[in-house]
């Protein structure tokens, strides 16, 4: 006697069913399938938005405009990657914007004092990771809500910025300015910054870790059902703490990239940037409840946000608050689209 699978994908393959429909069925049926589906939706949205810009504004179609989406948002990409890890476990990290600010302030003030740039970079990354690790430990061991813990972390980091320096500190270090001003020339008179290269490497590494390592699969398992993951013998505690440490590291790295972009350290940098990162992750198709999503989606999510920003700055006449309003509406649309397309039907 055999058990037949009663999953909703129509069991009897009707003849004459088009390839398109079976591809669609695959997308709906498998787990990579349904995540890929959400990411495809984001990709389509990106193309539509960008296409709209090209039609509406003369210069929008220049290749460098597209590349600038990456150049202007390299830091946000890194932030969104860290956020993706946390959200996949069903958590949230509200501290990342403040950690970006803290990183710029620490870097700028130490460089001003004449510290060697590599040492400063290492220290900033260590601080971010440590802060993330501490928040993760609080979430796991004290069983506190991630929302509250990282909110506290946000106030702590922001407060520390002010303790170190209230006014903005310019960065004049050779390594930093060199990295900021030199670009990677691409054919067709276009370029990318080193920050973009770093961000893309981070995306690639994250994708590998999430999909090809046991650690990564544990992240998804925790998001699916934390209790079950524990009973399956997975290292739930270690993974949860690590995920916040990763987000802390990414925030610090994002902070360093941001300081390259803006060449200063200031306690009021990056206010609300954690929310941009969360928005990017959600637009990228990752479920806030955890367990489903792709890091590639988060990259696309950042690009969608960037495109909206460019559209509005190209228009010139519109207030930049329109960016926020559009992002707000988009978020809503996305959550709805996700509901409709990825709803589990039995």
């Amino acid at each position, binding site marked *: 006697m055999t*058990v037949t699978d*009663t999953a909703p994908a129509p069991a009897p393959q009707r003849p004459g069913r088009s390839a398109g429909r079976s591809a669609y069925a695959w997308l709906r*049926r498998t787990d990579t399938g349904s995540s890929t589906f959400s990411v495809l939706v984001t990709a389509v949205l990106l193309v539509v938005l960008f296409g709209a810009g090209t039609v509406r504004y003369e210069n929008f179609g220049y290749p460098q405009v597209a590349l600038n989406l990456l150049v202007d948002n390299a830091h946000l990409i890194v932030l969104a990657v860290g956020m993706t890890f946390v959200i996949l476990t069903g958590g949230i990290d509200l501290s990342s914007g403040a950690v970006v600010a803290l990183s710029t302030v620490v870097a700028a003030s130490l460089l001003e004092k004449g510290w060697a740039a590599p040492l400063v970079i290492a220290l900033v990354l260590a601080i971010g990771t440590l802060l993330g690790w501490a928040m993760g430990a609080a979430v796991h061991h004290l069983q506190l809500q991630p929302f509250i813990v990282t909110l506290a972390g946000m106030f702590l980091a922001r407060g520390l910025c002010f303790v170190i320096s209230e006014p903005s500190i310019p960065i004049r270090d050779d390594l930093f300015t060199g990295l900021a001003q030199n670009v990677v020339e691409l054919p067709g008179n276009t370029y990318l910054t080193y920050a973009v290269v770093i961000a893309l490497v981070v995306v690639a590494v994250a994708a590998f870790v999430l999909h090809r390592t046991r650690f990564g699969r*544990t992240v998804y398992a925790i998001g699916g059902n934390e*209790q079950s993951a524990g009973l399956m013998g997975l290292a739930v505690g270690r993974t949860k703490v690590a995920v916040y440490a990763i987000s802390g590291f990414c925030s610090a790295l994002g902070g360093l990239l941001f300081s390259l972009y803006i060449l200063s350290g200031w306690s009021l940098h990056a206010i609300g940037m954690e929310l941009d990162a969360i928005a990017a992750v959600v637009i990228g198709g990752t479920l806030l409840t955890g367990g489903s999503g792709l890091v590639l989606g988060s990259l696309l999510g950042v690009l969608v946000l960037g495109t909206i920003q460019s559209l509005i700055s190209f228009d010139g006449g519109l207030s930049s608050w329109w960016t926020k309003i559009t992002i707000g509406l988009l978020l809503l649309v996305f959550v709805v689209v996700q509901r409709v397309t990825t709803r589990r039907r039995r």
Partner: protein
Amino acid sequence: MPAPPPATTGGGAPLLLETHAMSTPAPSPVVEMSGITIEFPGVRALDGVGLRLFPGEVHALMGENGAGKSTLIKALTGVYRYDAGTVTVDGVPQRFGTPAEAQGAGISTVYQEVNLCPNLTVTENIVLGREPRRRGSIDRRASRERARRVLGELHLDLDPGSVLGRHPIAVQQLVAIARAVDTDAKVLVLDEPTSSLDAGEVAELFRVVRALRDRGVAVLFVSHFLDQVYEISDRMTVLRNGRLVAEHRTAELSRLQLVQEMIGRELSTLEHLDREPSADTPTDAVPRLRARRLGRTGAIAPTDLDVHAGRVTGLAGLLGSGRTELTRLLFGADRATSGSLEVDGRPVRLRTPRAAIAEGIAFCSEDRKGEGVVGDLTVRDNVLLALQARRGWLRRIPRKQGDELVAKYMQALDVRPADPDALIRNLSGGNQQKVLLARWLLTEPRLLLLDEPTRGIDIGAKAQIQALVSQLAAEGMSVVFVSAELEEVLRISDRITVLRDHRAVADVPGSTATLDSVVDLIASGGDRA
């Protein structure tokens, strides 16, 4: 500290007999637990319990709902800490802090509730935590092959790339079993693995269990089905109210004795169901529910079904035959893609459960963890949930009336502990099931859809529940009864609709149906008719 468990009771000197028969010295246990005591706030769940698992033996852990079986298992596998007692594995004292540590020591476990990740694929759920790797990266093809192999071993025809959460509970349970046997564990623990499986899958499972046993694995098996226990086990440990009653060789213990030890009284108090299925299904009367060509693409082919007032209609069929799917259509939990429904001769469209509830239909889901219990609420609140929802949230149930209703049904179903203020997540699996049943029974629906209502319920309580359902039907309620256990469907139903391969193949009166005739129908699909 309580004395270590008696080697066996009853029947001379069994140890001697054993050495005699096998002419090899008795092996020493792989796992030996003794004096295990666990206290939860207000309850002593285990009191000085011992358990010995021998290599190459299947050991059944027996006891009523709430006896402490799952708790003992969780003490062994590091989920719960015990307040007193010792656990040795291969003679070495161990105290596992987490399930991961127990797994590392070679103890592989399927817990009572399905504990897998619904968002991941079948393959991933099987290999999670021990994925085959190549050069530091998970080897997906090898993972899939491995999943396919172990599913094949269980003769499970399942797409390993599909998402687990889309499969019915029974399939998920089988995947959990596949995960557990896909290791070279020396101890395999199965807590009610068969509670929602039908005879075919149980046979497959037992084949695999026997193969493992012959390889020297020690298997701990929990089930409320005595037939299964007698078929597979070599040794038994009986628990009652958190205490050890005795350890026996299965061959030396009669069923009568076993039941006596489990319930602590004579078997005669177990009333049997003496309900005559009514032969005269009123074909002229307007049925309470009439489905015509009701179906849903990919789930169930267009089906006709009549449910009359005061009658129990049983749905019989194998796992995946469309039993659950059909019930869900009747409740509006899934939308039908074809056909029509009538309630009392009036056409209705059930697009949502709300619409069905408004028609007086209630549905007790098979997925008690996902669609049933609200873990953080008390037993009382869980029982009253459906009734309150039906009255509307503004019309509170008066405290006193609520208490009376809860007390009445808790007593009728023998929920233990009999404390309406206990959190339901702290109840044993069987007792949670009773609470869910109480929730739907007390709404006194006109049509009650029961999907596996006795899953994980012990023999005593099962008879009580069947009696209660019959009584409610006699008082005028219509019932649709779904169960993987055919005997139960036969015993309780007035009419039986037989399903096979997602379609209804026969409709027979309960009075004439026999186990053999229904099995025949399931197997042949009514082709001969």
